[in-house]
């Protein structure tokens, strides 16, 4: 397998990087949607995430890479037949970042019965699909706006419930599938159904560089990477490691980040000004701000966190008037109103 481009070597695109890092700190934020032009490095960023994330502890031999300290009820019923399964010992494995390839069939996404075992031994054995593989990690779908509707529905359902249910040959299997759904696409090629938009926690817009300096930097680094991938990755390893340590520290700090009444009020007012539907926007805004605060080593959420994360948390929830030019402008205006310029 080819080496992935290092996350820290990505030039600019701060909003995208921030959203992905926040999702890494707090996966419960609920998915990241990345929309933008072709060739802006959307896929590169998500694939880079895989080698950036700190490894996770799993139950040894568990086919669903369950967390030894988490809820194991499902894991115990599902994995008990596995010989390798050992409840007392644990293993470390990299956080999965599963790339959903185009043309994947439904049976491979949700999982199916193992054909070979059925043919050779007449046994019904469940063969986990991509959803299982993505458990506790990320599931990435490039060109999500082009994915067939029934598959998008399925993915969002599983992502929301954290559980995948497969019924086949009289077997009924439920397994945990908690993952951060990351979708990317080019809006010029078709939009995502509005109902699906707000099921993503964060939405970011990426743009191609317009400044010569940043275009040059993108090109220079890309060229260096392509000519000598391992050398390039080695050069950026210290930065990636620093970022990884920050993520680990942020996760530990997350539960202790204080949400002051003032910050909560600010978040609520911001959502009201924008008329974003439901409480989801507010919830995500606060959570994302908390993750950002944790990432930056703060003890409580302040205006700057809210302000920086508000566009990503809210821009895709302004459903009142889907046509008013640029929801970004509206978010910007509301932020100015709230915080002053």
């Amino acid at each position, binding site marked *: *397998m*080819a080496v992935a481009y290092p996350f820290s070597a990505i030039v600019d695109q701060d909003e995208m990087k921030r959203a992905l890092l926040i999702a890494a700190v707090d996966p419960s934020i609920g998915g990241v949607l990345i929309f933008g*032009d*072709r*060739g802006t*490095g959307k896929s590169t960023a998500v694939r880079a995430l895989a080698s950036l994330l700190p490894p996770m502890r799993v139950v040894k031999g568990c086919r669903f890479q369950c967390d030894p300290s988490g809820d194991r009820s499902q894991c115990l019923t599902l994995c008990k037949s596995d010989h390798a399964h050992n409840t007392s010992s644990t293993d470390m494995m990299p956080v999965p970042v599963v*790339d*959903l*390839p*185009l*043309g*994947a*069939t*439904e*049976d*491979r*996404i949700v999982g199916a*019965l*193992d*054909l*070979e075992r*059925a*043919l*050779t031994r*007449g046994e*019904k054995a469940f063969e986990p699909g991509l959803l299982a593989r993505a458990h506790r990690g990320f599931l990435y779908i*490039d*060109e999500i*706006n*082009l994915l*067939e509707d*029934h598959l998008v529905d399925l993915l969002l359902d599983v992502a929301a419930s954290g559980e995948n249910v497969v*019924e*086949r*040959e009289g077997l009924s299997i439920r397994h945990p599938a908690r993952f951060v759904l990351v979708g990317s696409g080019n*809006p*010029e*090629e*078709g*939009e995502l*159904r*509005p109902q699906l938009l707000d099921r993503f926690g964060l939405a970011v817009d990426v*743009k*191609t*560089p*317009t*400044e*010569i300096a940043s*275009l*040059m930097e*993108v*090109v*220079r680094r*890309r*060229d260096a990477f*392509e*000519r000598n991938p391992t050398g390039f990755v080695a050069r950026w390893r210290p930065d990636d490691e620093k970022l990884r340590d920050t993520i680990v520290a942020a996760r530990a700090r997350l539960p202790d980040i204080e949400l002051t009444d003032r910050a909560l009020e600010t978040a609520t007012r911001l959502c009201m000004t924008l008329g974003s539907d439901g409480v989801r926007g507010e919830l995500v805004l606060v959570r994302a701000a908390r993750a950002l605060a944790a990432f930056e080593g703060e003890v409580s959420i302040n205006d700057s966190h809210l302000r920086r994360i508000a566009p990503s948390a809210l821009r895709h929830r302004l459903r009142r008037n*889907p*046509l008013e*030019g640029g929801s970004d402008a509206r978010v910007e205006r509301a932020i100015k109103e709230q915080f002053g310029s």
Partner: protein
Amino acid sequence: MTTDPSTRAVQWVDATLAATLLAVDPASLHGVALRAPAGPARDMWVSQLRDLLPAGLAVHRLPLSITDDRLLGGLDLTATLRSGRRVVQSGLLASANRGLVIVPMAERLAPPTARQIAAVIDTGVVRTEREGLSLKTPSQFITVACDEGIGEDEQLCDALRDRLAFHLDLSAAGPNSLIEPEFDRNEVALARERLPLVEVSDAAIEALCAAALALGIRSPRAVMFAIAVARSSAALDASPTVRDTDLAAAGRLVLAPRATRLPAPAADQDEPDSAEDTADDGQDPTPPTPPEDQSDDSKPDSATLEDVLLNAVTAALPDDLLAKLDQAAKSNVRHGAAGNSGTTRPAALRGRPIGHRQGTPGSGHRLDIIATLRQAAPWQPMRRAERQRQKSSTSAPLIELRRDDMRIKRFAQSVSQTTVFVVDASGSAAFQRLGEAKGAVELLLADCYIRRDRVALIAFRGDKAELLLSPTRSLTRARRALASLPGGGGTPLAAGLTLASDVAETIARQDETAVIVLLTDGGANIASDGLPGRPRAEADALASAQRLKAAGLRSLLIDTATRPQPLAKRVAEAMNAMYITLPNADASSISTAARVLDDRQPHSNARAGRR
């Protein structure tokens, strides 16, 4: 298009050079989008390329109708059942490793297929997650996408085109002016070995980036291709560094075909003014203003390099670039519509079959018998054994089918409708109410958006009507087209209606339904032939309106005049349109009208079914 012999010769020089460079560095350059009709010119180019590539290279032709299991690989069911273990049948993209993939009629390649090829180009790996198989097969190949399209509407889908370094046009190149490559296979192989040794200076990178920005190209990928081309060109001549001529070749072959605007005449250090109104806005290619004073402190050689580069590019730009850009900006029919798999609604009963999915027949779905049997086949021994164990009294059926085996057919057929907005942007309408008309269109657009319908926008003013936006589902483009709608001039109502029926006819040919929404004050004063004169203009308008009625199109006329006009009403009658007046129309009444329009349509149950 010019076709004099010298132009043809130039085309061949570049085409032959492109083939040579591609042969030097196929791993970075990936391939070529070759626009040419099937014929000797194209064949000769391909054989030139093959002569430059290592001998014995496998050539694979990718048929348009290729299915996912043939493209990506799948389960060989017969062999699997016979042997009792999984037998994999490898797909074309995996077998093509280290070979050449030729795609004839690439302009008609289904967008999902094009994207699958693009994904393999990006990652160098074919990923198969199908029918219980989970495979990763490394594969790198050269793609020659033969685009036989005519006109800008018909071309290879952008997702794949973007990933091929060269965009060649040989449609005007006769086979007679063919030029022998300057290098042969062995020299190319030597150049390939020299590639890692070629240095690309910072000044060269800067020049390429600046030239790309000046031409409205912002994709780093294009610049990467340009660098790779410059490097290959230097390697061919055994030069240790990239020289001016190499940069010029890169500019001509990679940047020029991707230009979205003309560079400023004296381009020093172009700063594109803002993200929004540069690259995407082909309709108004404003030359950027070169900031004078800040170019002095930068390295002088990069500025000269850039001059060399821009001169090379400008010389290579087609004369009709502006016209083409204009055209491309307006008609993104193929990229916008066909590029969207949301357009191809499954669950219809007609259209091109595009595979199957799990589900039960009925309610608008048809059983795919073969796929269902295929699904059930592997489980038969197990089910039979189960049945015997349970000692079921009923006699065993030949094939035991279960509900989960059921596969239903999916068809690439859109049951969605396209709403064609025909907006009167004439002086009479513009000054008073164009803004409000735009508002009304926005309301309706919002409805279309929710229903996932496509929209098209026609404006008429002066002496003609213009299709500002071909049918698209992209809200972004619809919004942009509407915002930039100009106003003023006469009212060629007849021309607007004629164009509307033409567009509706095209839509009908794509098996979709069209709905016309006309916004006018009815003050027609320009006849079909573009000449002024109220009586003839009115007669022509009524005639055109009747043509719409004859085509059986459902329509809505929104009278934008301050006081309702008799002619508007007569036009509405002639085209059998619903008639509402804007002064009385608020958001809700327009929405209601749109809904009534929707309810009148015969496909309403199909529509409900796909929700």
